[in-house]
């Protein structure tokens, strides 16, 4: 415990009292990535884009994520702020771009919240069907009304947990993450056993060609696949920014991040190769090319692969979604809070619940928007899960891209100061930013095609395009309204444009390392 008088500010923030060890950091990293949920949501759409080359895309997709994450870490060190991308982009490029970066982050997390809740609903009814041995129960998830109501109930639960800041014990976290990993490995191994025994649905022999990114048919397929694979590593960057609280030597966070990503990549490769070998990429009942199952592949494959043990997959995906719902809720809420704090949004958003110490108002607003968004999408889209994931990839590219460029611009006076800076403040983020920008624009252009993604369209324009553009345009509209009503922020009075002077935040110097 530490005691500080109000006047002395940041001298000790209590971080010294608690720190996360190596295993703890890995557990947080993996639970933020939520591999069981991520794979079931992203595998189908990725297969539809790049076919057999999913393993190659997984390997390549990590590169832009890593490059941007390095830049993210630099900014987090120089200006730790709960607004992250919003604050950093504002400091680097001024209020307008900063506002849009914040908007992009909020939109991306709200998209993923609705997707997460949607996946959870599917698996909830699948689990009921497995428990009661009644396959009809699983079909309840197809009824849009039941689906939306269940989803709203889940969102309500997740909101309450976030608002009240209820937390599971460390032991429970370890068990949940460990269980998730075990089930996924089991799934992979059993799928391969089926392939070996000739009992697979559409046995497809693994070939080296799967790992060759150049074998992808077209650049737009490659770009679409990459933007999806950025989603599958989304959340990994937290292991890098946990610096301040990881106990032990300075190398612990680095090791945690490395080990997390190795575990995740190996796991993804295992699942991807196993699923493709087992089910092929055809359009048959369980084929990964079947549009009906692509939005949620484990939902369809768990039974054929694991038989009576399929319920384990349901539990794993549900628990992974729950954990992810909890960690994901925090990020739009904190960004909204920062935006309220700096006057970019009404000051209500900056309210902290004095009892639970959470950004209460912002949490509730995010939840309401995500719920409304899901409810509307469920009725508009042919395949809500698939379309939200694709649009999500686009939004991640948008705000990560801006953040990456913000790194370069903010550190422009010092990035040549040392060899380390050249890599971490110039080359890595710049390259990452360029890749993300290319992905973003390619996806926008391609998604105008009504056949893009799940084939949902409105008036002959792809739904993903409408979603992406709708999010960005509505952001611009709201930004202009805010600029008229709350001009201080947009005049740079609350958060000024700046450039790094090479000094790290004072607070970080005193942290235990």
């Amino acid at each position: 415990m530490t005691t500080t008088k109000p006047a002395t500010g940041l001298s000790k923030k209590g971080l010294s009292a608690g720190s996360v060890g190596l295993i703890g950091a890995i557990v947080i990293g993996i639970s933020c990535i939520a591999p069981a949920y991520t794979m079931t949501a992203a595998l189908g759409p990725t297969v539809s884009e790049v076919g057999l080359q999913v393993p190659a895309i997984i390997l390549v997709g990590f590169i832009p994520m890593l490059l941007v994450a390095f830049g993210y870490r630099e900014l987090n060190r120089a200006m730790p702020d709960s607004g992250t991308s919003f604050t950093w982009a504002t400091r680097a490029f001024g209020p307008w771009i900063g506002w849009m970066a914040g908007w992009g982050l909020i939109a991306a997390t709200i998209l993923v919240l609705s997707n997460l809740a949607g996946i959870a609903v599917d698996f909830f009814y699948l689990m009921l069907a497995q428990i009661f041995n009644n396959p009809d129960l699983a079909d309840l998830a197809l009824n849009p009304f039941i689906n939306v109501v269940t989803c709203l109930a889940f969102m309500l639960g997740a909101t309450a947990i976030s608002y009240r800041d209820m937390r599971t014990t460390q032991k429970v976290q370890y068990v949940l993450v460990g269980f998730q990993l075990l089930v996924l490995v089991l799934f992979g191994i059993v799928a391969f056993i089926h392939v070996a025994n000739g009992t697979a649905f559409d046995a497809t022999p693994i070939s080296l060609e799967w790992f060759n990114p150049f074998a992808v048919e077209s650049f737009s397929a490659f770009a679409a696949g990459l933007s999806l694979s950025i989603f599958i590593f989304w959340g990994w960057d937290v292991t890098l920014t946990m610096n301040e609280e990881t106990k032990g030597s300075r190398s612990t966070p680095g090791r945690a991040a490395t080990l997390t990503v190795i575990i995740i990549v190996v796991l993804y490769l295992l699942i991807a190769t196993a699923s493709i070998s087992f089910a092929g990429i055809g359009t048959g009942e369980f084929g990964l090319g079947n549009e009906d199952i692509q939005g949620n592949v484990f939902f369809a494959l768990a039974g054929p692969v694991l038989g009576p043990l399929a319920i384990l997959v349901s539990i794993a995906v549900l628990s992974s979604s729950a954990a992810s719902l909890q960690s994901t809720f925090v990020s739009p809420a904190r960004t909204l809070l920062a935006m309220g704090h700096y006057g970019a949004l009404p000051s209500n958003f900056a309210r902290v619940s004095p009892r639970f110490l959470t950004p209460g108002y912002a949490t509730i607003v995010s939840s309401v928007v995500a719920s409304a968004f899901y409810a509307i999408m469920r009725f508009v889209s042919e395949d809500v899960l698939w379309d939200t994931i694709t649009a999500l990839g686009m939004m991640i590219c948008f705000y990560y891209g801006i953040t990456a460029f913000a790194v370069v611009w903010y550190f422009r006076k010092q990035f040549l100061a040392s060899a380390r800076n050249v890599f971490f403040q110039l080359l890595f983020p710049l390259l990452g930013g360029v890749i993300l920008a290319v992905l973003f624009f390619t996806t926008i252009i391609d998604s105008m095609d009504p056949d893009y993604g799940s084939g949902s369209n409105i008036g002959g324009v792809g739904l993903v395009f409408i979603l992406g553009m709708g999010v960005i345009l509505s952001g611009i509209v709201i930004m202009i309204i805010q600029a008229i009503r709350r001009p201080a922020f947009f005049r740079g009075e609350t958060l000024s444009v700046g450039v790094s002077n090479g000094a790290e935040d004072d607070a970080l110097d005193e942290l235990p390392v």
Partner: protein
Amino acid sequence: MRYIVGYTDTPAGADALALGVRLARSMTATLDIVTVLRSEARPTLVPSDAGYERFLHETAQGWLKDAAAVVPRDVPSEGHIVYAESFARGLLDVSRDLEGSMIIVGAARGGLLGRATVGSVASALLHSAVVPVALAPEGSGSTVGLNGLTRITCALGTRAGADELLDAAVLVARAAHIPLRLISLVTLDMDDMTTPPEVAERAATHAEQVLAYAAEHLPNDLDVAVLTASGNRVEDAIKHVDWEPEELVFVGSSRLAKPRHIFLGTTAAKMLRELPVPMVVVPRD
């Protein structure tokens, strides 16, 4: 003497602060207004964020500043932000470190008609503190304000711990120059629907004993009254006693308490449900 006020920017926090001011004034103690933030030691699935932690710290400083503005000038006060796993833990730690003489918290919301209910924080304190814990009932901050104490009531049973309890009550009554009232709770240990004559007799005897004890041990300069509370249940008995809005009730700890620790007994817990005035729970001797 330093009194520790567990403060949050909520009505319950304001209740605690008002009670703290009243007590500190009577006892010429200083106030330490404490807000507890969560330490990172808590297990979490959500990665903590240095920026948010700083924002919280600044917000908490603002809360403490607002709280300090409520405290009158004649009461010296100091604000503290403390990091701990839980609110209760933080208060216990700070009370140990600052050698606090009392911990003051607000009762949880949700009690009916201004009656106190024990929240999780108060409950943790009431079962583990080593100094007296004062509970401000809901809304007392706005109804009673910062008025001085008018009377001390001390609830005595036949159980061990009464001496220590009496001493604590006498101390406050003397310092504040206010009357002391002793309530005999012996009847309340019985769970009968009607009070049999022998029990009534025992109650009377106990009340006499208490008075005799008071006459013998209590200083002469103190205005002491004795009262027997009766009713089928503790709650009924408490309801039928008259309470001044500005008085303060002292109760002892259960026999289950470790020596020099607080443990809220069942009778005290039942009293708490009905008491419209603040209650101080004193540790066992």
